[in-house]
């Protein structure tokens, strides 16, 4: 009976999402429609698409687990997520304006146009595609946890990964066929369920915990501390993870494209105004519930399962609804990642020299399919190594953030040149990868700075240094001045 409730609710959820997508679909080979949905969405759709891309299902698992095992350090996700929303406001005018004026469809397209360079475009696309892949595999594994819990013991965690792969493979049919319009429309449904229902469940969990003697007074003193002087991680560790998260936010290709799917720059700003309070409320409630639950013995033993363990106190229906929240968040994220991978690889790598809309759209669809297959293989090969994969996914942040100097300085400053941008990205990426291998968490000798932040410092120094030593030619200076006018 419980199995029927769990898997039955999953089926209902799928039918609802597919029904909404099919009602609103437009079949087309137009690449602008496939990649940015014709720049047609209003602020509520933009808000939910941003949230559903930004907050993956693992927010209920690994990030909630961090709060449940270590306390307030888990709240760092609130700080960097809100900074990302603030940046959205400041980026809106210029990015949307340049995007519309030059018919830009991807982040790599954007930096390629800014620096008038295919090398910048291809380098940014490769860094983006490589960094997104571990998150797709991690998403598949998050789904495995959902299918395992909602089977109420009938499906083992290992078998559940295979079930989730089968379900995702079916779901990807609509991502391949409908492109960005299907993703944004499904994000509305998935976002309401994941963060609306998820937020309400979190309130219920907090009330339950406070009434059953699991209040703030039961938390260990260490839960209210951050790594400081004399700690293993170092006093600059927290600063580093918030900085990397915030600067890295708009470096993710699937997030950046949200600036292009809106109707206008004002729409982007309005979606930032809506996203800030929604994101703050949801994260504050969910992470607080997870932290309070740490005093429960079963949560202390398996902190990553805190969301499901809390929900199991409400019976099979509440547990199933909680699982649907994770499923909804994961679906939105995986769809956005695979679609962004397809579009970037097709337009900015394989067809960087140009191609017809039909050719690029076809290539993008094929790559979405291939990426899904590769992620499935990756998930099968790492079925028992979730922790290692999460480390790899978080390490991807140290790589993706190396796009930040070229992206942000290119928006704020007229002088950076293409060679400076390419060299900066390559140096930053290589430094970050090497240091990440040597110091996976933080670098004690540098006060707790992370590999990504050291890479950023080198990256910025190279970008500024090369720019100053080799200024752009006058024709390029005039082009950039016209762009900024």
């Amino acid at each position, binding site marked *: 009976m419980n199995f029927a409730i769990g898997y039955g609710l999953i089926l209902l959820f799928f039918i609802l999402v597919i029904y909404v997508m099919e009602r609103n679909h437009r079949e087309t080979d137009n690449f602008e429609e496939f990649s940015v949905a014709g720049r047609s969405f209003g602020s509520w759709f933009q808000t939910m698409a941003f949230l559903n891309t930004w907050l993956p299902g693992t927010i209920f698992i690994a990030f909630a687990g961090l709060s449940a095992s270590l306390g307030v350090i888990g709240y760092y996700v609130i700080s960097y997520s809100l900074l990302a929303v603030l940046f959205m406001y400041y980026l809106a005018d210029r990015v949307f304006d340049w995007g519309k004026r030059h018919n830009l469809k991807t982040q790599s397209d954007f930096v390629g146009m800014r620096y008038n360079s295919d090398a910048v475009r291809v380098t940014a696309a490769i860094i983006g595609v490589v960094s997104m892949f571990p998150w797709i595999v991690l998403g598949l594994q998050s789904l495995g946890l959902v299918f395992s819990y909602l089977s109420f013991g009938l499906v083992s965690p290992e078998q559940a990964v295979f079930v989730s792969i089968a379900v995702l493979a079916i779901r990807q049919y609509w991502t391949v066929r409908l492109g960005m319009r299907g993703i944004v429309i499904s994000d509305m449904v998935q976002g309401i369920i994941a963060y609306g229902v998820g937020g309400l469940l979190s309130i219920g969990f907090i009330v339950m915990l406070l009434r059953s003697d699991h209040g703030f007074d039961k938390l260990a003193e260490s839960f209210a501390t951050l790594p400081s002087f004399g700690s293993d991680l170092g006093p600059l560790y927290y600063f580093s993870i918030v900085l990397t998260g915030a600067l890295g936010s708009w470096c993710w290709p699937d997030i950046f494209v949200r600036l292009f799917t809106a109707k*206008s720059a004002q*729409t982007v700003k309005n979606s930032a105004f809506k996203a800030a309070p929604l994101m703050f409320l949801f994260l504050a409630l969910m992470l607080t519930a997870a932290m309070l639950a740490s005093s429960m013995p079963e949560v202390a033993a398996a902190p990553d399962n805190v969301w499901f363990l809390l929900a199991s106190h409400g019976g099979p229906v509440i547990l199933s609804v909680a699982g649907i929240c994770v499923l909804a968040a994961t679906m939105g994220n995986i769809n956005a990642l695979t679609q962004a991978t397809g579009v970037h690889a097709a337009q900015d790598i394989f067809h960087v020299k140009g191609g017809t809309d039909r050719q690029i759209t076809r290539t993008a669809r094929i790559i979405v399919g291939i990426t899904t297959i590769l992620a499935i293989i990756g998930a099968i090969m790492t079925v028992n190594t979730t922790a290692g994969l999460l480390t790899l996914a978080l390490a991807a942040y140290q790589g993706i953030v190396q796009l930040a100097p070229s992206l942000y300085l290119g928006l704020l400053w007229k002088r950076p040149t293409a060679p400076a941008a390419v060299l900066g990205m390559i140096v930053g990426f290589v430094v970050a990868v090497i240091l990440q291998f040597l110091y996976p968490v933080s670098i004690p000798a540098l006060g707790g700075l992370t590999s990504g932040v050291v890479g950023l410092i080198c990256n910025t120094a190279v970008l500024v240094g090369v720019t100053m030593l080799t200024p752009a030619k006058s024709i390029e200076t005039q082009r950039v001045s016209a762009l900024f006018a």
Partner: protein
Amino acid sequence: MRDRSATERWILIVNLIIMLFPPIHLFFAGGSMTMALVYFFGSGLILVGSMMVLRSMGDNRGEE
């Protein structure tokens, strides 16, 4: 217009300092749960409030 631009710049700087400046979060998250929650929820509310201030300014109330 210049006033608006200056306000926007200050809002960005203040929020970056609150969220990123190590002495602030190391002071608040030093072992007292009340202080830690005041910092994390307070800094979040300040940023949400900043967005409301930005919205109330000039053309941000306009149509999409």
